[in-house]
């Protein structure tokens, strides 16, 4: 058994399975209600693959109206609901339970309108992140948040988790780039929050909904900002002999008045694996590698890189190399964005997502190494250095229950460390089930109670993604 306990399924719901499926078929027809165990198995997990549960049923509605009918029916029947985009959550945000119906948004994948004059796009929530950029890149625009999983992950999931990405240092995360959503509440009511304008009236319900991990409703459409891309962009690689030098260099670049588009960090184990995968030309003999990207016109890029070079000199970089071609730039980013996948080829891993004040970087990296070593586990560090968002990958053997438990324990210790030094449990992956039981380390009982009361407002019976975010004990509704 894994460390995170899930509540026992509601046997009365399991006993009513046939009746519930009939009800769902009446709404959606047979084709989009997935019933057979083999097909349901495709939905048993997300990217936190250590946890697997086959749901009661899976439905694939094709419109907001169908989502509304499904939720109204399931709420009436008292059935739990887990919404699912592409199932790329690293925190178990889309993990089903035996007594839940998974509402998959895969069929809601249309781009509804692109408005270059007002610099917004309206999309169905099941559209993939990259497809928004693909739809507007011909005109030189892009959608800014770029999670590593952007080829697969959906806007629905991005909104649920308030996802970030490497380029958020300059352009912000999901909540800064979503202007409006259409959302279905648990009773089937359809609401519109925000719109195509830059701010919404009244209390910031949109701000509250983004990052609510599928616990307030199901978002079926979104209006997002699209931005004109800079004239050009160029990454440079900087290798250092110590994490302390790399960390100090990041601070000095920012203190010099430059906000690069991205500052990414890899340690030696990560460099080795990513280089083997992407052949990006990463230096293999350094302890810490920074990928720093700047953008603008050719003259601006040259100027910014010269400034960054001057700043970096003080920290004794072993390597400083600027990309010489589009192909080289693509390879540099391919290595970084494929890091999680590349790491997965050599070992199973748990991907942590803590955030720390950047000034504490060297000391935290040392402690992370010590924590993992203390459990006899190896760790590779890949993260967004500019904003202190750490992604230690704790390597373990998934076939060994004991190692999984050790890896989870080490992960919890790392996240507690992040909170201790003034950071937080999760920067962009969300709480899900993975960090659910760590929430009391970041929040007081009063703060957790307030958040749970907010959950009550949207979903009084706690049917939406219920086993996530909050510890199972101390809830107003029995999990």
């Amino acid at each position, binding site marked *: 058994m894994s460390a995170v306990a899930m509540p026992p399924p509601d046997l009365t719901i399991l006993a009513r399975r046939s009746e519930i499926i009939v009800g769902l078929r009446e709404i959606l027809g047979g084709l989009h209600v997935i019933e057979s165990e083999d097909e349901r198995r495709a939905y048993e997990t997300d990217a936190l693959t250590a946890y697997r549960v086959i749901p009661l049923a899976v439905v694939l509605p094709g419109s907001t109206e169908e989502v509304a009918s499904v939720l109204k029916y399931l709420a009436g029947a008292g059935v739990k609901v887990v919404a699912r985009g592409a199932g790329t959550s690293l925190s178990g945000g889309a993990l089903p339970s035996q007594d839940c119906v998974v509402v998959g948004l895969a069929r809601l994948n249309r781009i509804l309108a692109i408005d270059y004059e007002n610099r917004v796009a309206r999309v169905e929530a099941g559209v993939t992140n990259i497809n928004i950029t693909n739809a507007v890149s011909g005109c030189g625009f892009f959608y800014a948040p770029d999670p590593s999983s952007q080829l697969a992950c959906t806007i629905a999931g991005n909104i649920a988790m308030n996802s970030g990405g490497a380029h958020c240092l300059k352009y912000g995360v999901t909540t800064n780039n979503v202007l409006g959503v259409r959302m279905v509440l648990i009773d089937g009511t359809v609401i519109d929050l925000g719109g195509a*304008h830059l701010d919404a009236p009244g209390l910031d319900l949109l701000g509250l909904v983004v990052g609510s991990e599928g616990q307030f409703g199901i978002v079926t459409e979104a209006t997002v900002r699209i931005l004109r891309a800079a004239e050009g962009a160029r990454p440079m690689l900087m290798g250092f002999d110590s994490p302390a030098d790399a960390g100090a260099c990041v601070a000095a670049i920012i203190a010099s*008045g430059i906000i690069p588009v991205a500052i990414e960090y890899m340690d030696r184990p990560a460099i080795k694996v990513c280089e083997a995968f992407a052949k990006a030309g990463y230096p293999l003999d350094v302890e810490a590698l920074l990928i720093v990207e700047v953008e603008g*016109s050719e003259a601006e890029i040259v100027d910014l890189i010269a400034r960054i070079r001057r700043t970096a000199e003080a920290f004794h970089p072993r390597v400083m190399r600027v990309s010489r071609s589009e192909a080289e730039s693509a390879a540099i980013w391919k290595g970084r964005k494929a890091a999680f996948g590349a790491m997965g080829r050599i070992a199973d891993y748990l991907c942590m997502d803590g955030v720390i004040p950047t000034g504490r970087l060297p000391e935290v990296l040392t402690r992370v190494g010590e924590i993992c070593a203390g459990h006899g586990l190896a760790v590779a560090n890949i993260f967004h250095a500019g904003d202190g968002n750490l992604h230690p990958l704790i390597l373990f053997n998934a076939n060994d229950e004991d190692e999984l438990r050790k890896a989870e324990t080490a992960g919890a210790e790392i996240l507690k460390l992040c909170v201790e030094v003034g*950071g937080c449990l999760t920067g962009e992956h969300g709480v899900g089930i993975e960090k659910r039981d760590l929430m009391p380390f970041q929040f007081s009982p009063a703060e957790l109670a307030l958040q749970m009361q907010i959950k009550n407002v949207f979903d009084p019976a706690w049917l939406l993604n219920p086993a996530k975010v909050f510890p199972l004990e101390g809830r107003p509704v029995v999990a």
Partner: protein
Amino acid sequence: MLTPADEPHLAAVVADAAARKAPLAIAGSGTRSGLGRPMQTATTVSTLLLTGVTLYEPAELVLSARAGTPLREIETLLAGNRQRLAFEPMDHRGIYGSSGTPTIGAVAAANLSGPRRIQAGAARDNLIGLRAITGDGKVIKAGGRVTKNVAGYDLVKFLAGSLGTLAVLSEVTFKVQPEPETEATLAITGLADKQAIAAMAAALGSPYSVTGAAHAPADEGEPGRTYFRLDGFEASVAHRVDSLRAALSDFGPADLLGPATSASLWLTILDVDGLSAPLGTPIWRVSVRPGDGPQVVAAAQAAFPARVLYDWGGGLVWIAGGEGSDAGAAVIRAAVGAVGGHATLVRAADAVRNAVEVFEPLAPPLMDLTRKLKATFDPAGILNPGRMYAGV
């Protein structure tokens, strides 16, 4: 007026008021007390004595301060490190004719964002942490001192702009930004509103990182002026001035305003100086898709004399005017309703703001959620009751 000396005292004041169900008006120095519906509160509690910067890490681009800290003090401290609040909080003293010292708490509580909102985000996007007293007197924190934080629900966003109706902010943490080395503004003269919107759309859709796009329509014989701001390193700004000028050549020749002229121009746009007098004229703040702004303005001007300033590339429209007992609410709300967006009656006599909704009326399910969330944060209904909506 109650002026608790620290957070525990503030919490005690709120807890006491909650126990007595005695409504409190929440204020900093009160320079923006004209914003919102008039309230019937016997007692005002002010955060003015909760002062001081509690954290400033220039290399981490983060600053925390107690809610009553004067905004000017923070801006001076940041400027000493060539940093700033990038979202440009507005000073309301001009349009309200109020006096006092604007506080950092109000910047968060009212989500005050100026011309750079189009590029740097709103105050709510730069607010990363806070401490606050909820209506039952409990001290809570939300967010923290790191930029990325998705643990739990985003109460930082939710409290930003809630105008003291959910909790009293006691401390706020903002992301700060480097001050650009220089700035410049291009100005095109004589564009009609629709042309100006098209020019601003072209500029904001260009790769030149425009950080301000505003249009002052023709007024009392003065031709319209459309402004485009660029900032950054010297050489970069020079390059982008040339590129943007070329890109906008179809709209007419553009004058170049140097750093000092540019900086003072954008302060007048930020604070809507051109529309502030006379103080008796109502002022509307309209948020729409940029392309829809001229339609709303045309509807207003067909009904009553109105002077106008477009900011955010046209997406933020300030309208000074509005006749009758509703200050033009029927006309403006109908025009905004036709295109999508919302309107706030930022300035009007108390009697008018008692008679018409100040903030855009919400659809019934949103009003229902709003009321329930208000009750969650403030069960006794004592914090700025009625300032945003009746019963909220």
